[in-house]
């Protein structure tokens, strides 16, 4: 079992957990993910590693409450345990000295972009960072991002905080400026990554995205997470999660994310009917 050692509510629906998993923490690198499972009835959910501490043996995960499982996770407290916490999975980010790098985190994507920005910064790159969210309440880690970037731009879609803009606007400005980045990372909801990749394509700057596909085992066994990159089928779990955003078949990715929408809706409704304060009684388990 894998115990939650710290919890922080980053936004009303965005939660941070630190989980004690020393073996995972020992090997974790920026860009990798874990698969968590709450209990014996639970599904296996991939979550990108937001931070790791090799000394304390903790992995930080950040998630947004969207469906049954993440809502149930939102009720977990310090001291509660995950039945499974598997990792570090996927290929780590290719950290090198590229020169100037642009890192972009949208919404809950700010969490996975942070360790990448930090590693790129430590590798001697000039890091320009953009973080954005729909509104102020969904924004987090501004200070942490500032500490690992040479320049930080903050924006909200509705202008409730900082600059009113979608992240693609400052991205285009930076790409048109004199200090054009050598490479870009953009992480966030699929639709944001799609438009980020479309925005950078005309400038010819390689843009890496990190995909959070539906998975089961996370080790290449099932193929649930398959995507098409450059016309070839790839498994996000073992070939990714990072891919060249300019090569992605975005429509396929968006379609495949919708496979279980009906079932997810049903499970969420059932959960909310029964989840009076987190009690799972009456669920027929």
């Amino acid at each position, binding site marked *: 079992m894998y115990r939650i050692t710290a919890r922080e509510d980053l936004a009303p629906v965005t939660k941070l957990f630190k989980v004690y998993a020393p073996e995972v923490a020992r090997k974790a690198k920026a860009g990798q993910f874990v698969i968590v499972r709450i209990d014996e009835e639970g599904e296996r959910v991939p979550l990108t590693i937001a931070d790791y501490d090799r000394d304390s043996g903790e992995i930080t995960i950040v998630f947004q409450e969207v469906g049954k499982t993440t809502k149930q996770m939102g009720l977990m407290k310090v001291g509660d345990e995950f039945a499974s916490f598997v990792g570090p999975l996927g290929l780590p980010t290719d950290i090198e000295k590229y020169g100037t790098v642009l890192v972009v985190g949208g919404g809950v994507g700010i969490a996975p972009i942070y360790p990448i920005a930090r590693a790129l910064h430590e590798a001697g790159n000039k890091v320009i960072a953009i973080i954005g969210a729909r509104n102020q309440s969904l924004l987090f880690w501004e200070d942490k991002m500032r500490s690992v970037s040479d320049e930080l731009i903050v924006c909200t879609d509705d202008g409730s905080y900082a600059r009113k803009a979608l992240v693609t606007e400052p991205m285009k400005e930076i790409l048109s400026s004199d200090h054009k980045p050598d490479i870009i990372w953009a992480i966030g909801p699929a639709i944001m990554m799609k438009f980020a990749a479309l925005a950078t394509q005309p400038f010819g700057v390689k843009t890496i995205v990190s995909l959070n596909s539906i998975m089961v085992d996370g080790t290449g066994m099932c*193929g649930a997470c398959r995507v098409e990159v450059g016309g070839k089928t790839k498994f996000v779990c073992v070939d990714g999660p990072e891919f060249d955003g300019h090569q992605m078949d975005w*429509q396929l990715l968006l379609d495949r994310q919708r496979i279980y929408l009906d079932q997810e809706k049903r499970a969420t409704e059932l959960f909310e009917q029964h989840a009076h304060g987190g009690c799972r009684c009456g669920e027929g388990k």
Partner: protein
Amino acid sequence: MAKVAPRNEMPRQDPHVRGRNFDEVALGYSAEQALAEAQRCLQCKNPTCRDGCPVNVRIPEFILALRDNDMWRAVEMLKDKNNLPAICGRVCPQETQCEEKCVLGKKFEPVAIGRLERYVADWEIGQGVRKPTVAPPTGKKVAVIGAGPAGLTCAGDLAKLGHQVVIYESLHAPGGVLIYGIPEFRLPKAIVRTEVQYVQSLGAELRLNSVIGKLATVDELFAQGYDAIFLGTGAGLPMFMNIPGENLNGVYSANEFLTRTNLMKAYKFPEYDTPIMIGKQVAVIGAGNVAMDSARCALRLGADRVQVVYRRTKAEAPARAEELENAEEEGIEFHYLTNPVSILGTDKGWVSGIRLQKQQLGEPDASGRPRPVPIPGSEYEEQVDMVIMALGTRPNPMVFTDTPSLERTKHGTVVANEESGRTKRERIWSGGDIVTGAATVISAMGAGKRAAADIDAYLKNPQQTWWVE
């Protein structure tokens, strides 16, 4: 051999009922049926049945004890060579192994060895499995990677011999293909759990959720003090056909479909959290055991029509005869000499049909089976909303991260000696599907058993030269 009673049939659930539930299909012998079947055994002076068994189970001995109504002795004889008899009694292809070699089978039907094995193993489970005697600790440590049939067998044998064994399993439940692949109605998961607990009772430690290659490399395991490593990670990577439409919503690899259904218990959604699509018109591509399992799961999940599509004929179908028969009885349709050319989809990205082409058999190919040759102009379409690709699997390369010195074939399988399981790298043994490519549970168990014997010999005498280049 003048008068031989006919082979005793094993009761099964009615096909019309079982096609809609996940309960076990084959119900097992009653005590009377088991005794009657045991009476058929000739107790040959030179039994040939044992030679047909990859782990050389003491077949005549356990049947004799059963006949004498000495059940604990039957258990002892059975488990002398086999740590997982309740599993083998259910999923072994006995018709091509022990039963094929049964002397009685030359003129009559062979003794139903598999059904007797199951009966004895289930009897023991009913009584409460006894902990066997284990040799005193040797102080040697072995890491077994993968808790499937090969790994569990190897671990059980090594633990019995007094070695300290740790089994690393990437999934959250032990059993490998026994737990994620083979469905409940063919192999109840409670049986797998009992057999795994038996291996643990021998002293083997199980570490779940541990992906070797990611959590630790093989070299790091050696650095942690292991004296030997057995790799039994199976063949878990699904194959696809690379035809248009294969990534549409509603196309599953058999691995994904079965893992969701069996390991994750999606058939109990929403009591269990993992969802699965319910196909109404399902096409399963392939005719191996995995294809039969997929087709029969699709039926039980609520499909109206399930079609198995296979490019050769029934004679070449790799599935066990019994599984083909079970599927036919349950109403699964078979389209032989047929192959998909593309999968058709809606503008929203969901499967809407499949385009098929008739085949004819040609000259034998590399596998020795006649090559299917497409018949031009024979394409036609079928309306389906789900397609399951059951085309076979390859070894997962993940375990080899940072282990470049381990020699592999172009198919990704590990090069290992068939008799000893020794790989080209010192102190690493391997066996099961990772070496042979997808094969049977019992052949993987046989490989695990032979490797355990060789590892034990090595641990007792590590000074001897074991690897020569």
